[in-house]
C-alpha cells in the first residue's frame, strides 16, 4: 500500500510539472491537487510506520514549484506575436490582390 501510494505521488508530481510548464492554465491544477492529496496520504503512512519522509518533502517542493508555474501561466496575459516577416508577407499579398482586383468594375 505504502509503495503504491508513493509511486502514484511520484507519477502525479511529474504530470503536474509537465502540465504547469505547458500553457494549459488552470487545467494544470487538476494533477497538482491530485499529487498533493496522494503525497499527503503517503506522508501520513510513512510517519505512521516511522520511515523517512524526505522523498515526500521533495515531491511537495516540486508540487509547490508546479503550482507557482501554473498560476503564472494562467495569469499571463494573452498576447499575439506579430513578426516582421508576417507583416511583409501580408503587405505583399495585399499588393498582389490589388493587382488582381484592377479589372473589376462594380455595378451599383
Amino acid at each position, binding site marked *: 500500500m505504502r509503495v503504491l501510494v508513493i509511486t502514484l505521488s511520484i507519477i502525479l508530481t511529474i504530470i503536474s510539472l509537465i502540465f504547469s510548464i505547458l500553457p494549459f492554465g488552470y487545467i494544470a491544477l487538476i494533477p497538482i491537487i491530485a499529487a498533493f492529496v496522494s503525497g499527503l496520504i503517503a506522508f501520513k503512512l510513512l510517519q505512521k510506520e516511522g520511515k523517512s519522509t524526505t522523498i515526500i518533502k521533495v515531491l511537495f517542493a516540486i508540487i509547490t514549484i508546479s503550482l507557482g508555474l501554473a498560476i503564472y501561466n494562467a495569469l499571463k496575459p494573452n498576447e499575439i506575436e506579430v513578426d516582421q516577416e508576417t507583416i511583409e508577407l*501580408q503587405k505583399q499579398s495585399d499588393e498582389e490582390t490589388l493587382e488582381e482586383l484592377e479589372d*473589376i468594375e462594380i455595378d451599383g
Partner: protein
Amino acid sequence: MSRILLIITVLFSFAVKGQNNTIAAGEKLTFTASYNMSGLMTDLAQVTMETNEVKTSKATLLRLRCKAQTYSKWDNFFKINDIYETYVNPTNLIPYLHKREINEGGYYKKMQYNFDRGLNKVKSVKTKRRKDGTFWSENKNLTIGSKTNDIVTTIYYIRNLDIHKAAIGSSDNFTILFDNEETSMKITLLSKETISTNIGKKECYKLSISLNNNDILSGENNNLLWLTADANKIPVYAKFKVPVGNGELKIQSATGLKH
C-alpha cells in the same frame, strides 16, 4: 396598374434587402477563442474581423478580413495563423474575390475564388504545400447558385439581415462555397436574450447554426451565435461544437462601428 405597382414594390423590397446598412469600412471586432479541455475553457487564439476600404483605378471595394491566430504561449506547440478575406461591393456585399490562407502547425493551404456574378461562375485556385516545401496548385471552374457566397460574405450578410422583422422560430437557408463544394447552412432565430459581454450588457438575437450536408459543426442547436439586437448586429458570443470537442468565441473589443 396594380400589377406595375406590385412589380415596383417587389423590386424595391429586394433593393432594400440587398443594401448594406450595417457594415462600414474601419470596423474592427476582436474575439478570444477558447476550447474546452477537461471541462475548463482554455484561451487558444485571437480572432479578428476587420473591414477596410480598398481602392482600385476603377472601383472602391470593401475588404472583409477575418484572422485567427494562436496566442504566443501556444505557438511553440501548435501555431495557427489563418486569414479569410473577401473583397465585396460596399453597397450590397456582393463578393468579387475570396481568399483563404491556412497555416496550421506546418500545414498550409490557400483557396482563391474569383466570382463572376453575371454567369454564376467561380474560378477556383487551390494551392497546397508539399512536405519538401514546394507548392502545387489546382485550378477549377465551378458553376454556383445565384445566391451562393463564400463563408466571410455569409457571416457579414447575416449581420445585414433585417432580423428585427423575423419571428422567433423562423429560419433562413444560405449556401456557402467551401473547399469547392456548395454547403447548405440553416440559421434559426431561437430567442432574444440579454447577456453580459466585455463590451457591456447587450440585448441579443440568439441564433442557431446548422450545416445540412457537412459534419464540421455537429448537432442541432449546439452551434449558437448571439448578435446584438441593435443596428450594428455585432457577433458578441458564439458557442460551437465540432467532432473533436467544443469551444466558444467571446468578444473583447469592438471599434469603428457604423451606428
